[in-house]
């Protein structure tokens, strides 16, 4: 069965520092991978997605993610975080049914001033 693991429940980063959020997936075929962000009290917003092609994917708000098949990973990165990036980040993989996403538990990002 497909699964998504986000090993870090929360991460604290200083404003201006770089960020990497980890995501590992379990899926037999070529995965469709997503990163979403959820600000407090808000819905989820798609940051970026990988379906095929270039394994380094650029998203909105200055985020990027790299698909590494050998490591079953799709880590999210940002070179310099801003206080407004404080939110919860969810990694997801499309399941066998083409409309269902398997969600990770989320990583809460805390920004230190």
């Amino acid at each position, binding site marked *: 069965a497909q699964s998504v693991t986000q090993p870090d429940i929360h991460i604290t980063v200083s404003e201006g520092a770089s960020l990497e959020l980890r995501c590992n997936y379990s899926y037999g075929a070529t995965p469709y991978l997503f990163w979403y962000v959820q600000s407090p009290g808000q*819905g989820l917003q798609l940051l970026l997605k990988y379906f095929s092609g270039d394994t380094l994917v650029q998203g909105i708000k200055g985020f990027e993610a790299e698909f590494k098949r050998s490591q079953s990973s799709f880590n999210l990165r940002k070179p310099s975080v801003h206080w407004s990036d404080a939110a919860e980040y969810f990694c997801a993989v499309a399941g066998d049914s083409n409309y269902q996403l398997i969600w990770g538990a989320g990583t809460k990002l805390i920004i230190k001033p």
Partner: protein
Amino acid sequence: DARVTQTPRHKVTEMGQEVTMRCQPILGHNTVFWYRQTMMQGLELLAYFRNRAPLDDSGMPKDRFSAEMPDATLATLKIQPSEPRDSAVYFCASGTGTSGIETQYFGPGTRLLVL
């Protein structure tokens, strides 16, 4: 800037009462998703519609939950009777493409508290 809208944003009700949550998908989107988010279970897919037809509602407790799309501009999720374990945030999302997950737009959610 097109958005998915959901009403009400907050709902407090007593056990046994009926709850109706409404969603207006983005105009032109042909897929609608209902999700439930809780601390314990995370995000769960409750129902999935494509072109207003319910294709999957296996995530919903059938005896108390129902989801419909009376028209292309309205999706509803009803709980009758409500129970305290239904307390959660309920999100509606709409999308386009083959399945809709390619680009899902989420609404702000309905935060439900059942006492």
